């Protein structure tokens, strides 16, 4: 038995450490640890709720824009604001394109190198690579000359003995099973995907000013003024044409490169439909409203819960059932660390009790992560593209069922194969395909509104804080690329007094709870084969299949705070203690439980 540690887990966002026990060539136990803490929710207290999204967005730059959206939704919910249809459409376009963009970048730039041996591309026959490419796709960049060019580029890199980003790869690892031609094909598409993501995300630049960290949200709508007759309006007919062009190019890439590559690579690694199964409980808040955000029945992505891999019953989501443990997290609860707390009643007292750095190994019997352990009805849940796809499938979504069935048929795999490492990868591609088909519809609706003279982009009725109640609270739910995201806010005297985010990667990457129930990563790693404990590449495959985002995952709940900003900065008074009072917020509890 050996303790195998991966730290840093690379090709993710943030700082993640995985420790595993390896016994007889298999992972027999696993522990997931987030090793960085910032405390952004703490920093949010005392700020203007209208700008909370600007701050909250900085929770993550990979999942950029998603925290901004959850934040404005939370504040709008608290203040009872309905946004104009154009703002809804712009938000759907931004979130939908973020999702597609994120999935493409994840597959090629964060995940592919777990399956693709770059150096084996040197042994490929460019003519055979061309044949392979043409056999799986219509994508025009498929000639022998083209692949020869890519191969020469790799050759030069290797010959220079300065392999740059590829210098530390696990090349030659026995777990790499692709034929040389598939490796060359994937390397070519790794490079092409860099171009694709750069091009496609210009849709965010127009609608957000820049990517990452878009800057056009407003509580009540968006700042992207729309007017069919104004050349300087952010949205006008010329921009609609650009959106359509960008979406069309991305659609071609997704359907002719990304999806075929996933299917082709999966075809060489079918045993990975049998690894990485994990918890079997799935949750999605649902997203992409067709009308009001307050009508989840009308979302393009449905809301629901699946328990124990049972696709016959989609359970409703009750936000009141969410709670968090800190039994194995570097925090303390005043009621003791064996009890879970509803986030609205939560408290956070960070207290590091891990080994003094530098250290070799964590004490995983004790506390071992900056992540808490969220639970739904006291059970761990997996969130993300696989959860969403399964819930849509089980909810009877015809398009999802058709796409999933087509993918399974192509891979000659049964539906149960989806509960796996490869299942997560396939679900992500399926979702990108479905969203890139949907994007032009939202663009067309925006165009249609504009053509009919609907140029409302912001509901300013509650912009002036003088129009707000003395205190109020709200929440915003969302499906981010990595899964279900919720922000909760409490406002008093025009300032934020409580802010809380429960984030996809906390659900997935969190540590054990008081009952010893593993988090999703920990459960999925059990039984993973390890060819060489010195090079645990296989562990990365399953961890990466979740698309970890650790900056997102570490969060704290906030106590009552004082105001920050221009008026206090001249004489900053950093608080000496990080011990926070328990949140006295019956109202917050009510909000968490779905009321107002």
């Amino acid at each position, binding site marked *: 038995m050996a303790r195998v540690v991966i730290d840093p887990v690379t090709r993710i966002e943030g700082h993640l450490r995985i420790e595993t026990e390896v016994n007889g060539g298999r992972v027999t136990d696993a522990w997931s640890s987030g090793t960085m803490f910032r405390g952004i929710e703490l920093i949010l207290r005392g700020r203007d709720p209208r700008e909370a999204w600007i701050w909250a967005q900085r929770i993550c730059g990979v999942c*950029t824009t998603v925290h901004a959206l959850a934040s404005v939704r939370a504040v709008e919910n608290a203040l009872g604001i309905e946004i104009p249809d154009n703002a809804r459409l712009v938000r759907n376009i931004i979130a939908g394109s973020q999702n597609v963009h994120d999935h493409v970048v994840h597959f090629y730039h964060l995940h592919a190198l777990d399956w693709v041996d770059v150096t084996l591309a040197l042994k490929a026959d460019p003519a055979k690579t061309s044949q392979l490419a043409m056999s799986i796709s219509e994508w025009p960049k498929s000639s022998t000359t083209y692949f020869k060019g890519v191969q020469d580029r790799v050759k030069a890199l290797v010959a220079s003995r300065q392999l740059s980003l590829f210098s530390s790869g696990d090349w030659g690892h026995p777990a790499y099973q692709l034929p040389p031609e598939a490796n060359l094909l994937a390397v070519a598409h790794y490079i092409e995907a860099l171009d694709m993501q750069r091009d496609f995300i210009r849709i965010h630049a127009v609608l957000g000013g820049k990517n990452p960290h878009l800057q056009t949200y407003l509580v009540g709508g968006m*700042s992207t003024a729309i007017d069919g007759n104004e050349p300087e309006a952010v949205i006008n007919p010329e921009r609609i044409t650009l959106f359509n062009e960008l979406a069309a190019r991305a659609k071609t890439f997704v359907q002719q490169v990304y999806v075929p590559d996933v299917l082709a690579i999966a075809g060489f690694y079918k045993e990975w439909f049998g690894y990485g199964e994990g918890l079997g409980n799935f949750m999605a808040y649902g997203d992409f409203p067709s009308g009001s955000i307050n009508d989840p029945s009308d979302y393009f992505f449905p809301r629901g819960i699946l328990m124990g891999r049972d696709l016959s019953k989609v359970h409703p989501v009750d936000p009141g059932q969410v709670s968090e443990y800190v039994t194995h997290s570097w925090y303390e609860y005043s009621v003791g660390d064996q009890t879970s707390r509803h986030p609205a009643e939560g408290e956070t007292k960070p207290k590091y009790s891990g080994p003094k750095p530098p250290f070799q190994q964590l004490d995983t019997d004790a506390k071992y992560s900056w992540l808490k352990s969220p639970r739904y009805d006291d059970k761990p849940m997996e969130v993300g593209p696989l959860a969403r796809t399964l819930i849509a499938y089980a909810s009877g979504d015809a398009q999802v069922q058709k796409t999933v069935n087509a993918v399974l048929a192509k891979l000659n795999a049964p539906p149960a194969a989806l509960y796996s490492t490869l299942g997560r990868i396939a679900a992500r591609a399926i979702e990108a395909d479905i969203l890139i088909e949907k994007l032009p519809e939202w663009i067309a609706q925006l165009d249609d509104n504009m053509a009919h003279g609907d140029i409302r982009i912001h509901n300013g009725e509650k912009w002036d804080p003088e129009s707000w109640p003395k205190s109020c609270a709200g929440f915003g739910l969302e499906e981010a690329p990595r899964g279900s995201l919720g922000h909760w806010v409490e406002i008093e005297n025009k300032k934020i007094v409580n802010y809380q985010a429960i984030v996809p990667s906390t659900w997935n990457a969190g540590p054990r709870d008081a009952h010893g129930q593993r988090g999703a990563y920990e459960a999925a790693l059990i039984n993973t084969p390890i060819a060489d404990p010195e090079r645990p590449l296989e562990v990365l495959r399953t961890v990466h299949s979740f698309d970890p985002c650790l900056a997102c995952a570490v969060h704290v709940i906030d106590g009552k705070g004082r105001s920050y900003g221009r008026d206090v900065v001249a004489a900053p008074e*950093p608080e000496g203690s990080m011990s926070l009072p328990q949140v006295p917020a019956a109202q917050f509890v009510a909000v968490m439980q779905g009321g107002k």
Partner: protein
Amino acid sequence: MVAEESVLDTCRRRGVSRRQFMEFCGAMAATLALPKGYTQTIANALGQKRKPVLVWLEFQDCAGNTEAMLRSTHPTVEEIVLETLSWEYHETIMAGYGKHAEAALKRVVDEEKGKYLVVVEGSIPTADDGVYCTIGGRTALDIAREVCSGAAVNIAVGSCAWDGGIPKAGPNPTGALGLHEAVPGIKVVNLPGCPHNPTNTAAVLVHYLTFGVLPALDGYDRPLFAYGQLIHDQCERRAHYDAGRYVQAWGDEGHRKGWCLFKMGCKGPEANYNCPTVRFNDSTSWPVKAGHGCIACASPRFWDTKSPFYERLPHPAGFGVDVTAGEIGWTVVAGVAAATAAHAVGHVVRDHFHPGDDEPPVKEAEKTTTEVH
């Protein structure tokens, strides 16, 4: 074996003509505000054989600066510039992981001492012995001290690495610091912004590789070519400001016509950065073009000093908002109440430039290339 090749060789092999390559060098010279003759100097430097080694460290970060780098434009040619360097450690995108990743970093520190370049993203927590960020069991502070002190130059990208950014905003729960505060005495160039603009970062790298020194820096060690002017003075909406045409409400006629966002809280009059000219994502846009005010994300401690972001900048009471940005900046830096701005003489003051409030004098050090500006 293929012989080691220069960037120009690589360009040729990849079908980029010498003319295109020279155009790129020209564009870089323009970004750096270098005279035309420097195009050839840049081209010559990029023709060198050996690739300098670069490592990219991430501490209390959101990877937004990494993502921005991935969006770096002029794709084919800028990509080659990155290939000019051997980019051997960067957690978010490197092939290696765990021990292999750490070994790659150690190799650079041990074998390339004094020669390698470091990019730092994210702040460095110093409270409680630095336990708020560990990588491979070591604290961020420990890693930064070791790696950055052996570097030829350190490039702090984004506002967090510069002055602590959002983790350092009140109440700074983790004792977060910017790189130059956490590891004093090292050679640092700061490229703040949330995120940095990768075009500027590429330009700094090119400048350094070309001339062997950093471009001229201001008192915050920010390159003047990118941070030497107020956003307000470069803004495409400036004419509306001067003419008194303001957005009064989101979505109103002025908003749809692209008028000035000053009354909506825009901090452009207090912010030094080149967003309006360089823009983001293949020069597609920047926040003001997208209808939202600037938040001054490249200004010192901007999270605390420039918020509330929707609050109109202070201006002399009784004189309307139609005064110059420079005056407003001057007012704030002087730390006096807006109403006491003595030189507000009761009429519209224009064309009277003062530096922004975040503008200390140009440092004497690192001024080697100032003459080319």
